[in-house]
Protein backbone atom coordinates (compact mmCIF):
# COMPACT_ATOMS: atom_id res chain seq x y z
CA UNK A 1 0.00 0.00 0.00
CA UNK A 2 2.68 2.43 1.05
CA UNK A 3 4.62 1.83 -2.17
CA UNK A 4 1.60 2.61 -4.36
CA UNK A 5 1.02 5.83 -2.45
CA UNK A 6 4.63 6.91 -2.96
CA UNK A 7 4.43 6.12 -6.67
CA UNK A 8 1.20 8.08 -6.96
CA UNK A 9 2.73 11.04 -5.17
CA UNK A 10 5.77 10.95 -7.46
CA UNK A 11 3.52 10.83 -10.51
CA UNK A 12 1.62 13.88 -9.28
CA UNK A 13 4.82 15.84 -8.75
CA UNK A 14 6.01 14.86 -12.21
CA UNK A 15 2.73 15.87 -13.82
CA UNK A 16 2.73 19.24 -12.06
CA UNK A 17 6.21 19.85 -13.40
CA UNK A 18 5.08 18.91 -16.88
CA UNK A 19 2.05 21.24 -16.80
CA UNK A 20 4.24 24.08 -15.53
CA UNK A 21 6.62 23.39 -18.41
CA UNK A 22 3.79 23.50 -20.89
CA UNK A 23 2.66 26.92 -19.70
CA UNK A 24 6.11 28.32 -20.23
CA UNK A 25 6.51 27.01 -23.72
CA UNK A 26 3.71 25.36 -25.57
CA UNK A 27 5.19 25.62 -29.01
CA UNK A 28 7.76 23.00 -28.33
CA UNK A 29 6.89 19.44 -27.71
CA UNK A 30 9.00 18.72 -24.72
CA UNK A 31 10.57 15.33 -24.17
CA UNK A 32 9.23 15.33 -20.65
CA UNK A 33 5.75 15.24 -22.00
CA UNK A 34 6.55 12.26 -24.18
CA UNK A 35 8.06 10.52 -21.24
CA UNK A 36 4.97 11.10 -19.16
CA UNK A 37 2.84 9.60 -21.86
CA UNK A 38 5.04 6.54 -22.00
CA UNK A 39 4.90 6.21 -18.28
CA UNK A 40 1.14 6.44 -18.43
CA UNK A 41 1.29 3.53 -20.81
CA UNK A 42 -0.66 5.31 -23.55
CA UNK A 43 0.27 4.05 -26.95
CA UNK A 44 -0.71 7.15 -28.94
CA UNK A 45 1.95 9.78 -29.69
CA UNK A 46 2.36 12.81 -27.51
CA UNK A 47 -0.39 15.47 -27.41
CA UNK A 48 0.08 18.46 -25.23
CA UNK A 49 -3.07 19.78 -23.60
CA UNK A 50 -3.67 23.05 -21.81
CA UNK A 51 -6.54 24.50 -19.90
CA UNK A 52 -7.85 27.80 -21.24
CA UNK A 53 -10.81 30.10 -20.82
CA UNK A 54 -12.94 31.14 -23.79
CA UNK A 55 -15.69 33.73 -23.60
CA UNK A 56 -19.24 33.41 -24.88
CA UNK A 57 -22.06 35.95 -24.46
CA UNK A 58 -25.09 34.79 -22.51
CA UNK A 59 -28.27 34.35 -24.54
CA UNK A 60 -29.60 37.85 -23.78
CA UNK A 61 -26.22 39.46 -24.51
CA UNK A 62 -25.92 41.18 -21.17
CA UNK A 63 -22.49 39.75 -20.34
CA UNK A 64 -19.64 37.54 -21.45
CA UNK A 65 -19.25 34.25 -19.58
CA UNK A 66 -15.92 32.44 -19.26
CA UNK A 67 -16.00 28.75 -20.18
CA UNK A 68 -13.12 26.41 -19.25
CA UNK A 69 -11.80 24.30 -22.07
CA UNK A 70 -8.92 21.91 -22.44
CA UNK A 71 -7.32 22.15 -25.85
CA UNK A 72 -4.55 20.35 -27.68
CA UNK A 73 -1.73 22.56 -28.76
CA UNK A 74 0.10 20.01 -30.86
CA UNK A 75 1.17 21.54 -34.16
CA UNK A 76 -0.27 24.93 -33.38
CA UNK A 77 0.05 27.84 -31.00
CA UNK A 78 -1.97 28.10 -27.83
CA UNK A 79 -3.42 31.34 -29.21
CA UNK A 80 -4.77 29.67 -32.32
CA UNK A 81 -5.95 26.74 -30.22
CA UNK A 82 -7.91 29.14 -28.02
CA UNK A 83 -9.44 30.87 -31.05
CA UNK A 84 -10.34 27.49 -32.57
CA UNK A 85 -12.07 26.57 -29.32
CA UNK A 86 -13.98 29.86 -29.34
CA UNK A 87 -15.03 29.41 -32.96
CA UNK A 88 -16.15 25.87 -32.31
CA UNK A 89 -18.97 27.48 -30.35
CA UNK A 90 -20.98 26.27 -27.43
CA UNK A 91 -23.85 23.84 -26.91
CA UNK A 92 -24.86 25.52 -23.66
CA UNK A 93 -28.39 26.87 -24.15
CA UNK A 94 -27.66 29.72 -21.75
CA UNK A 95 -24.82 30.90 -23.97
CA UNK A 96 -24.55 32.03 -27.58
CA UNK A 97 -22.11 31.21 -30.34
CA UNK A 98 -21.61 34.71 -31.68
CA UNK A 99 -18.97 34.14 -34.36
CA UNK A 100 -20.72 32.95 -37.53
CA UNK A 101 -20.03 29.31 -38.38
CA UNK A 102 -19.17 30.37 -41.94
CA UNK A 103 -16.31 32.60 -40.77
CA UNK A 104 -12.82 31.20 -41.19
CA UNK A 105 -9.88 31.94 -38.96
CA UNK A 106 -6.91 32.64 -41.20
CA UNK A 107 -4.35 32.98 -38.44
CA UNK A 108 -3.27 34.39 -35.12
CA UNK A 109 0.09 36.12 -34.86
CA UNK A 110 1.62 37.71 -31.81
CA UNK A 111 3.87 40.72 -31.92
CA UNK A 112 5.01 42.02 -28.54
CA UNK A 113 1.91 42.23 -26.36
CA UNK A 114 -0.48 42.42 -29.31
CA UNK A 115 -2.24 39.48 -30.92
CA UNK A 116 -3.44 39.92 -34.49
CA UNK A 117 -6.45 37.74 -35.34
CA UNK A 118 -7.13 37.41 -39.03
CA UNK A 119 -10.52 36.26 -40.32
CA UNK A 120 -11.82 35.85 -43.84
CA UNK A 121 -14.71 37.96 -45.21
CA UNK A 122 -17.18 35.36 -43.99
CA UNK A 123 -17.03 36.98 -40.59
CA UNK A 124 -18.62 40.15 -41.94
CA UNK A 125 -20.79 38.59 -44.60
CA UNK A 126 -22.56 36.17 -42.29
CA UNK A 127 -22.81 38.41 -39.26
CA UNK A 128 -26.06 40.34 -38.78
CA UNK A 129 -24.44 43.05 -36.72
CA UNK A 130 -26.10 45.35 -34.26
CA UNK A 131 -24.22 47.31 -31.63
CA UNK A 132 -24.68 44.54 -29.11
CA UNK A 133 -23.78 41.84 -31.60
CA UNK A 134 -20.57 43.64 -32.54
CA UNK A 135 -19.65 44.43 -28.98
CA UNK A 136 -19.97 40.81 -27.91
CA UNK A 137 -18.34 39.30 -30.98
CA UNK A 138 -15.33 41.57 -30.59
CA UNK A 139 -15.39 41.18 -26.81
CA UNK A 140 -15.37 37.39 -26.98
CA UNK A 141 -12.27 37.42 -29.21
CA UNK A 142 -10.43 40.12 -27.26
CA UNK A 143 -11.16 38.65 -23.84
CA UNK A 144 -10.35 35.07 -24.88
CA UNK A 145 -6.90 36.13 -26.12
CA UNK A 146 -6.12 38.60 -23.32
CA UNK A 147 -6.76 35.69 -20.96
CA UNK A 148 -3.12 34.89 -21.74
CA UNK A 149 -1.27 37.30 -19.45
CA UNK A 150 1.33 38.21 -22.08
CA UNK A 151 -1.39 39.43 -24.47
CA UNK A 152 -2.56 42.94 -23.64
CA UNK A 153 -4.18 43.97 -26.91
CA UNK A 154 -5.95 42.35 -29.82
CA UNK A 155 -6.24 43.57 -33.39
CA UNK A 156 -8.92 42.05 -35.61
CA UNK A 157 -8.16 41.99 -39.34
CA UNK A 158 -10.08 40.74 -42.36
CA UNK A 159 -8.07 39.01 -45.10
CA UNK A 160 -4.92 40.46 -43.57
CA UNK A 161 -6.16 44.04 -43.65
CA UNK A 162 -7.10 46.42 -40.89
CA UNK A 163 -10.80 47.33 -40.98
CA UNK A 164 -12.61 50.26 -39.43
CA UNK A 165 -15.63 48.33 -38.22
CA UNK A 166 -17.27 44.95 -38.73
CA UNK A 167 -20.81 46.22 -39.21
CA UNK A 168 -20.68 49.97 -38.86
CA UNK A 169 -20.59 50.58 -35.13
CA UNK A 170 -17.52 49.64 -33.17
CA UNK A 171 -14.15 51.05 -34.17
CA UNK A 172 -11.80 48.07 -34.55
CA UNK A 173 -9.15 49.86 -36.61
CA UNK A 174 -6.72 49.81 -33.69
CA UNK A 175 -5.70 47.09 -31.23
CA UNK A 176 -8.29 46.75 -28.47
CA UNK A 177 -7.64 46.22 -24.77
CA UNK A 178 -9.48 43.70 -22.66
CA UNK A 179 -13.19 44.55 -22.39
CA UNK A 180 -13.80 44.00 -18.71
CA UNK A 181 -17.03 45.99 -18.86
CA UNK A 182 -18.66 43.06 -20.67
CA UNK A 183 -17.89 40.64 -17.83
CA UNK A 184 -20.14 42.30 -15.24
Amino acid sequence: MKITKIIAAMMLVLMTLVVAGCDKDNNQQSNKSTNTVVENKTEKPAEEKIKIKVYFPNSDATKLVAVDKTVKVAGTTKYKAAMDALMEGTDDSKLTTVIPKQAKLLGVTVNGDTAKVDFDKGLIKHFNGGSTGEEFLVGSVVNTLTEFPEIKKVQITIDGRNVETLKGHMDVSKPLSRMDELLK
Partner: protein
Amino acid sequence: MKKIWCRLLIVICCVLGIMGTGSLTAQAAVNHTLNYFRYNNFKDDDGRSWVRIEMGMNKGDLEYEVSQNPDKPFQLIIKMNNTNRGDVKKNIGLDRKIARYMTLKNENRDMVATIAVTDSLEDHEYKVYTAEADKKAKKPYRLVVEIAADKGSSNKAIGDEKLYGVEGRTVVIDPGHGGSDSGAIGPSYVKEKNVTLNISLDVARILESNGVNVVMTRTTDVDVYGPDATDKQELQARVNVSRRHPEADIFVSIHCNAFTNSSAHGTGTYYYGHSSRDSLLAQLIQDEMVAATGLHDRGIHSANFYVLRNSWIPATLVETAFISNPYEENMLASAEVQHTMALAICKGISNYFQNIGK
Protein backbone atom coordinates in the same frame (compact mmCIF):
# COMPACT_ATOMS: atom_id res chain seq x y z
CA MET B 1 -94.89 71.76 -0.99
CA LYS B 2 -91.34 73.00 -1.31
CA LYS B 3 -90.46 70.00 -3.45
CA ILE B 4 -93.15 70.77 -5.97
CA TRP B 5 -91.93 74.36 -6.32
CA CYS B 6 -88.39 73.09 -6.86
CA ARG B 7 -89.49 70.75 -9.61
CA LEU B 8 -91.49 73.46 -11.30
CA LEU B 9 -88.47 75.74 -11.21
CA ILE B 10 -86.33 73.08 -12.86
CA VAL B 11 -88.91 72.54 -15.59
CA ILE B 12 -89.12 76.27 -16.26
CA CYS B 13 -85.38 76.53 -16.45
CA CYS B 14 -85.21 73.68 -18.94
CA VAL B 15 -87.87 75.20 -21.16
CA LEU B 16 -86.10 78.55 -21.07
CA GLY B 17 -82.82 76.83 -21.92
CA ILE B 18 -84.31 75.10 -24.94
CA MET B 19 -85.91 78.37 -26.08
CA GLY B 20 -82.55 80.06 -25.68
CA THR B 21 -80.77 77.65 -27.96
CA GLY B 22 -83.66 77.79 -30.36
CA SER B 23 -83.48 81.53 -30.57
CA LEU B 24 -79.74 81.34 -31.32
CA THR B 25 -80.38 79.06 -34.26
CA ALA B 26 -83.11 81.34 -35.40
CA GLN B 27 -80.76 84.30 -35.16
CA ALA B 28 -78.18 82.57 -37.39
CA ALA B 29 -80.79 82.22 -40.05
CA VAL B 30 -81.36 85.94 -40.06
CA ASN B 31 -79.60 87.75 -42.87
CA HIS B 32 -76.29 89.41 -42.26
CA THR B 33 -75.25 92.48 -44.14
CA LEU B 34 -71.62 93.03 -45.01
CA ASN B 35 -71.06 96.74 -44.54
CA TYR B 36 -67.49 97.21 -43.34
CA PHE B 37 -64.16 96.37 -44.94
CA ARG B 38 -60.53 97.02 -43.92
CA TYR B 39 -57.21 95.40 -44.60
CA ASN B 40 -53.73 96.01 -43.21
CA ASN B 41 -50.29 94.46 -43.16
CA PHE B 42 -48.67 93.58 -39.84
CA LYS B 43 -45.82 91.58 -38.35
CA ASP B 44 -46.28 89.00 -35.64
CA ASP B 45 -44.02 88.35 -32.62
CA ASP B 46 -41.78 86.16 -34.75
CA GLY B 47 -41.34 88.99 -37.24
CA ARG B 48 -43.38 87.27 -39.96
CA SER B 49 -45.43 89.37 -42.37
CA TRP B 50 -49.18 88.97 -42.56
CA VAL B 51 -52.15 90.61 -44.25
CA ARG B 52 -55.32 90.97 -42.18
CA ILE B 53 -58.68 91.36 -43.93
CA GLU B 54 -61.70 92.38 -41.85
CA MET B 55 -65.27 92.12 -43.11
CA GLY B 56 -67.73 93.75 -40.72
CA MET B 57 -71.37 92.73 -40.26
CA ASN B 58 -74.48 94.32 -38.87
CA LYS B 59 -74.83 91.49 -36.37
CA GLY B 60 -73.01 88.54 -34.83
CA ASP B 61 -73.22 84.75 -35.02
CA LEU B 62 -72.15 84.40 -38.62
CA GLU B 63 -71.93 80.92 -40.06
CA TYR B 64 -69.22 80.48 -42.66
CA GLU B 65 -67.25 77.87 -44.54
CA VAL B 66 -63.63 78.07 -45.67
CA SER B 67 -62.51 76.08 -48.70
CA GLN B 68 -59.96 75.87 -51.46
CA ASN B 69 -60.59 75.17 -55.10
CA PRO B 70 -58.21 72.37 -56.09
CA ASP B 71 -58.17 73.71 -59.65
CA LYS B 72 -57.27 77.20 -58.45
CA PRO B 73 -54.51 76.80 -55.88
CA PHE B 74 -54.07 80.59 -55.66
CA GLN B 75 -57.53 81.19 -54.19
CA LEU B 76 -58.96 81.07 -50.70
CA ILE B 77 -62.75 80.82 -50.74
CA ILE B 78 -64.97 81.85 -47.83
CA LYS B 79 -68.72 81.33 -47.99
CA MET B 80 -70.73 83.47 -45.54
CA ASN B 81 -74.16 81.96 -44.99
CA ASN B 82 -77.25 84.15 -45.34
CA THR B 83 -75.26 87.27 -46.03
CA ASN B 84 -75.94 90.21 -48.31
CA ARG B 85 -73.43 92.68 -49.64
CA GLY B 86 -74.09 96.12 -48.19
CA ASP B 87 -71.89 99.18 -48.58
CA VAL B 88 -68.81 97.29 -49.83
CA LYS B 89 -67.35 97.05 -53.35
CA LYS B 90 -67.56 93.86 -55.41
CA ASN B 91 -63.87 93.87 -56.30
CA ILE B 92 -61.33 95.06 -53.77
CA GLY B 93 -57.59 95.40 -54.33
CA LEU B 94 -55.40 94.12 -51.51
CA ASP B 95 -51.76 94.62 -50.45
CA ARG B 96 -50.43 92.75 -53.54
CA LYS B 97 -47.48 91.35 -51.58
CA ILE B 98 -49.34 88.51 -49.94
CA ALA B 99 -52.87 88.81 -51.36
CA ARG B 100 -53.77 90.46 -54.68
CA TYR B 101 -57.50 91.12 -54.51
CA MET B 102 -60.83 89.93 -53.19
CA THR B 103 -64.10 89.47 -55.02
CA LEU B 104 -67.54 89.24 -53.46
CA LYS B 105 -70.29 87.35 -55.20
CA ASN B 106 -73.80 86.40 -54.13
CA GLU B 107 -74.67 82.74 -54.49
CA ASN B 108 -78.30 82.05 -53.62
CA ARG B 109 -78.68 83.45 -50.09
CA ASP B 110 -74.95 83.33 -49.36
CA MET B 111 -72.00 85.59 -50.03
CA VAL B 112 -68.82 84.11 -51.48
CA ALA B 113 -65.55 85.97 -50.88
CA THR B 114 -62.68 84.83 -53.07
CA ILE B 115 -59.25 86.00 -52.01
CA ALA B 116 -56.46 85.64 -54.57
CA VAL B 117 -53.03 85.18 -53.01
CA THR B 118 -49.79 85.93 -54.84
CA ASP B 119 -48.77 82.28 -55.07
CA SER B 120 -50.09 78.87 -54.14
CA LEU B 121 -52.11 78.94 -50.94
CA GLU B 122 -50.19 75.87 -49.79
CA ASP B 123 -47.21 78.14 -49.22
CA HIS B 124 -49.14 80.35 -46.81
CA GLU B 125 -50.36 79.90 -43.30
CA TYR B 126 -53.82 81.42 -42.86
CA LYS B 127 -56.48 81.82 -40.19
CA VAL B 128 -60.16 82.64 -40.46
CA TYR B 129 -62.10 83.63 -37.35
CA THR B 130 -64.86 85.96 -36.15
CA ALA B 131 -64.27 88.83 -33.77
CA GLU B 132 -66.81 90.58 -31.56
CA ALA B 133 -67.52 94.27 -32.05
CA ASP B 134 -64.79 96.55 -30.73
CA LYS B 135 -66.38 99.88 -29.77
CA LYS B 136 -63.09 101.57 -28.91
CA ALA B 137 -61.60 100.78 -32.33
CA LYS B 138 -64.99 101.52 -33.90
CA LYS B 139 -65.11 98.08 -35.43
CA PRO B 140 -68.30 96.07 -35.77
CA TYR B 141 -68.66 92.31 -35.35
CA ARG B 142 -66.54 90.92 -38.18
CA LEU B 143 -65.09 88.00 -40.00
CA VAL B 144 -61.29 88.19 -39.97
CA VAL B 145 -58.99 86.52 -42.51
CA GLU B 146 -55.24 86.54 -41.83
CA ILE B 147 -52.77 85.28 -44.43
CA ALA B 148 -49.04 84.98 -43.74
CA ALA B 149 -46.32 85.60 -46.31
CA ASP B 150 -45.09 82.03 -45.71
CA LYS B 151 -46.27 78.77 -44.27
CA GLY B 152 -43.74 79.05 -41.43
CA SER B 153 -45.40 78.25 -38.19
CA SER B 154 -48.32 76.38 -39.69
CA ASN B 155 -46.43 73.31 -38.46
CA LYS B 156 -45.92 74.72 -35.01
CA ALA B 157 -45.74 72.02 -32.37
CA ILE B 158 -48.93 71.29 -30.50
CA GLY B 159 -50.04 68.82 -27.85
CA ASP B 160 -47.55 66.24 -26.66
CA GLU B 161 -45.10 67.31 -29.37
CA LYS B 162 -44.48 70.64 -27.68
CA LEU B 163 -40.91 70.63 -26.34
CA TYR B 164 -39.17 73.05 -24.02
CA GLY B 165 -35.69 74.48 -24.06
CA VAL B 166 -34.91 73.42 -27.62
CA GLU B 167 -35.75 76.48 -29.68
CA GLY B 168 -32.77 77.82 -31.59
CA ARG B 169 -30.65 74.73 -30.92
CA THR B 170 -28.97 72.77 -33.69
CA VAL B 171 -29.25 68.98 -33.61
CA VAL B 172 -27.59 66.52 -35.99
CA ILE B 173 -29.70 63.42 -36.59
CA ASP B 174 -27.99 60.36 -38.08
CA PRO B 175 -30.33 57.64 -39.33
CA GLY B 176 -28.19 54.49 -39.01
CA HIS B 177 -27.04 52.67 -42.18
CA GLY B 178 -28.81 53.26 -45.54
CA GLY B 179 -28.42 52.66 -49.25
CA SER B 180 -26.17 49.70 -49.97
CA ASP B 181 -25.87 49.03 -46.23
CA SER B 182 -29.21 47.72 -44.98
CA GLY B 183 -27.97 47.38 -41.41
CA ALA B 184 -29.32 44.42 -39.45
CA ILE B 185 -32.21 42.44 -40.91
CA GLY B 186 -34.95 40.93 -38.76
CA PRO B 187 -36.35 37.37 -38.92
CA SER B 188 -39.30 38.75 -40.95
CA TYR B 189 -36.88 40.71 -43.15
CA VAL B 190 -37.55 44.15 -41.68
CA LYS B 191 -34.50 46.25 -42.55
CA GLU B 192 -32.80 48.42 -39.96
CA LYS B 193 -32.04 51.20 -42.49
CA ASN B 194 -35.76 51.76 -43.17
CA VAL B 195 -36.80 51.80 -39.52
CA THR B 196 -34.01 54.20 -38.55
CA LEU B 197 -34.92 56.56 -41.41
CA ASN B 198 -38.62 56.62 -40.47
CA ILE B 199 -37.89 57.33 -36.82
CA SER B 200 -35.25 59.94 -37.70
CA LEU B 201 -37.52 61.82 -40.12
CA ASP B 202 -40.19 61.95 -37.43
CA VAL B 203 -37.65 63.16 -34.88
CA ALA B 204 -36.59 65.88 -37.33
CA ARG B 205 -40.18 66.95 -37.97
CA ILE B 206 -40.98 67.20 -34.25
CA LEU B 207 -37.77 69.07 -33.48
CA GLU B 208 -38.25 71.49 -36.39
CA SER B 209 -41.79 72.26 -35.32
CA ASN B 210 -40.28 73.29 -31.99
CA GLY B 211 -37.85 75.71 -33.59
CA VAL B 212 -34.82 73.40 -33.69
CA ASN B 213 -32.39 73.66 -36.60
CA VAL B 214 -32.11 70.01 -37.65
CA VAL B 215 -29.21 68.71 -39.73
CA MET B 216 -29.70 65.22 -41.18
CA THR B 217 -26.87 62.97 -42.34
CA ARG B 218 -29.36 61.47 -44.80
CA THR B 219 -33.06 62.03 -45.57
CA THR B 220 -33.57 59.19 -48.04
CA ASP B 221 -32.40 55.60 -48.48
CA VAL B 222 -28.83 56.39 -49.50
CA ASP B 223 -25.26 55.87 -48.42
CA VAL B 224 -23.99 59.12 -46.91
CA TYR B 225 -20.58 58.91 -48.60
CA GLY B 226 -21.65 57.00 -51.69
CA PRO B 227 -22.55 53.44 -52.63
CA ASP B 228 -20.16 50.73 -51.44
CA ALA B 229 -17.70 53.10 -49.83
CA THR B 230 -15.35 51.76 -47.21
CA ASP B 231 -16.66 51.70 -43.65
CA LYS B 232 -14.29 54.49 -42.77
CA GLN B 233 -15.45 56.73 -45.63
CA GLU B 234 -19.09 56.08 -44.79
CA LEU B 235 -18.80 56.65 -41.05
CA GLN B 236 -16.48 59.62 -41.44
CA ALA B 237 -18.97 61.15 -43.89
CA ARG B 238 -21.59 61.07 -41.13
CA VAL B 239 -19.18 62.64 -38.66
CA ASN B 240 -18.28 65.26 -41.27
CA VAL B 241 -21.91 66.34 -41.71
CA SER B 242 -21.78 67.31 -38.08
CA ARG B 243 -18.37 68.99 -38.40
CA ARG B 244 -19.61 71.13 -41.29
CA HIS B 245 -22.04 72.67 -38.81
CA PRO B 246 -19.98 74.29 -36.09
CA GLU B 247 -23.22 75.61 -34.59
CA ALA B 248 -24.40 72.05 -33.94
CA ASP B 249 -25.05 71.30 -30.26
CA ILE B 250 -25.47 67.51 -30.26
CA PHE B 251 -25.23 64.44 -32.51
CA VAL B 252 -27.86 61.72 -32.22
CA SER B 253 -27.47 58.49 -34.18
CA ILE B 254 -30.55 56.26 -34.38
CA HIS B 255 -30.19 52.49 -34.81
CA CYS B 256 -31.85 49.12 -34.27
CA ASN B 257 -29.96 46.59 -32.22
CA ALA B 258 -29.25 43.00 -33.24
CA PHE B 259 -27.76 39.90 -31.73
CA THR B 260 -27.06 36.37 -32.89
CA ASN B 261 -29.51 34.99 -30.34
CA SER B 262 -33.08 36.14 -30.99
CA SER B 263 -33.88 36.22 -27.29
CA ALA B 264 -31.78 39.35 -26.75
CA HIS B 265 -34.19 42.24 -26.19
CA GLY B 266 -34.64 45.76 -24.86
CA THR B 267 -33.61 49.31 -25.52
CA GLY B 268 -30.14 50.72 -24.86
CA THR B 269 -28.18 53.90 -25.50
CA TYR B 270 -24.46 54.29 -26.17
CA TYR B 271 -21.98 57.11 -25.70
CA TYR B 272 -18.22 57.47 -25.92
CA GLY B 273 -17.61 59.76 -22.98
CA HIS B 274 -15.54 62.72 -24.12
CA SER B 275 -17.33 64.64 -21.37
CA SER B 276 -20.11 64.14 -18.85
CA ARG B 277 -22.51 65.64 -21.38
CA ASP B 278 -22.29 62.52 -23.55
CA SER B 279 -23.52 60.24 -20.80
CA LEU B 280 -26.08 62.82 -19.67
CA LEU B 281 -27.57 62.98 -23.16
CA ALA B 282 -27.55 59.17 -23.41
CA GLN B 283 -29.19 58.72 -20.01
CA LEU B 284 -31.94 61.29 -20.60
CA ILE B 285 -32.87 59.74 -23.96
CA GLN B 286 -32.69 56.25 -22.46
CA ASP B 287 -35.05 57.25 -19.62
CA GLU B 288 -37.64 58.59 -22.06
CA MET B 289 -37.31 55.55 -24.36
CA VAL B 290 -37.91 53.12 -21.50
CA ALA B 291 -40.85 55.15 -20.16
CA ALA B 292 -42.50 55.50 -23.58
CA THR B 293 -42.00 52.00 -25.00
CA GLY B 294 -42.08 49.83 -21.88
CA LEU B 295 -39.14 47.92 -23.35
CA HIS B 296 -36.58 46.21 -21.13
CA ASP B 297 -34.06 48.78 -19.89
CA ARG B 298 -30.58 47.73 -21.02
CA GLY B 299 -29.17 50.96 -19.67
CA ILE B 300 -26.51 53.21 -21.13
CA HIS B 301 -23.08 51.94 -22.14
CA SER B 302 -19.86 53.60 -23.05
CA ALA B 303 -18.54 52.07 -26.26
CA ASN B 304 -15.79 52.64 -28.77
CA PHE B 305 -18.18 53.44 -31.62
CA TYR B 306 -16.74 55.27 -34.62
CA VAL B 307 -19.37 58.01 -34.98
CA LEU B 308 -19.32 58.70 -31.24
CA ARG B 309 -15.56 58.68 -30.70
CA ASN B 310 -14.94 60.98 -33.66
CA SER B 311 -17.66 63.46 -32.77
CA TRP B 312 -16.58 66.90 -31.59
CA ILE B 313 -19.87 67.57 -29.88
CA PRO B 314 -21.83 65.53 -27.29
CA ALA B 315 -22.97 62.44 -29.15
CA THR B 316 -25.13 59.42 -28.50
CA LEU B 317 -26.28 56.33 -30.37
CA VAL B 318 -29.76 55.06 -29.59
CA GLU B 319 -30.35 51.32 -30.04
CA THR B 320 -34.13 51.55 -30.13
CA ALA B 321 -34.93 47.81 -29.88
CA PHE B 322 -33.69 44.44 -31.19
CA ILE B 323 -34.66 43.88 -34.80
CA SER B 324 -33.32 40.32 -34.38
CA ASN B 325 -36.00 39.62 -31.76
CA PRO B 326 -39.31 38.70 -33.50
CA TYR B 327 -41.48 40.58 -30.99
CA GLU B 328 -39.39 43.73 -31.12
CA GLU B 329 -38.99 43.48 -34.90
CA ASN B 330 -42.77 43.69 -35.10
CA MET B 331 -42.77 46.75 -32.87
CA LEU B 332 -40.05 48.45 -34.91
CA ALA B 333 -42.05 47.93 -38.10
CA SER B 334 -45.12 49.64 -36.64
CA ALA B 335 -45.58 53.31 -37.55
CA GLU B 336 -47.19 53.94 -34.18
CA VAL B 337 -44.22 52.55 -32.25
CA GLN B 338 -41.83 54.44 -34.53
CA HIS B 339 -43.64 57.66 -33.61
CA THR B 340 -43.60 56.78 -29.90
CA MET B 341 -39.86 56.25 -30.13
CA ALA B 342 -39.31 59.46 -32.10
CA LEU B 343 -41.23 61.45 -29.51
CA ALA B 344 -39.30 59.81 -26.67
CA ILE B 345 -35.97 60.70 -28.31
CA CYS B 346 -37.17 64.30 -28.75
CA LYS B 347 -38.21 64.52 -25.10
CA GLY B 348 -34.81 63.21 -24.06
CA ILE B 349 -33.16 65.87 -26.22
CA SER B 350 -35.43 68.53 -24.68
CA ASN B 351 -34.57 67.33 -21.16
CA TYR B 352 -30.90 67.49 -22.06
CA PHE B 353 -31.05 71.12 -23.20
CA GLN B 354 -33.09 72.07 -20.15
CA ASN B 355 -30.57 70.28 -17.94
CA ILE B 356 -27.46 71.95 -19.33
CA GLY B 357 -29.12 75.38 -19.43
CA LYS B 358 -27.98 78.15 -21.72
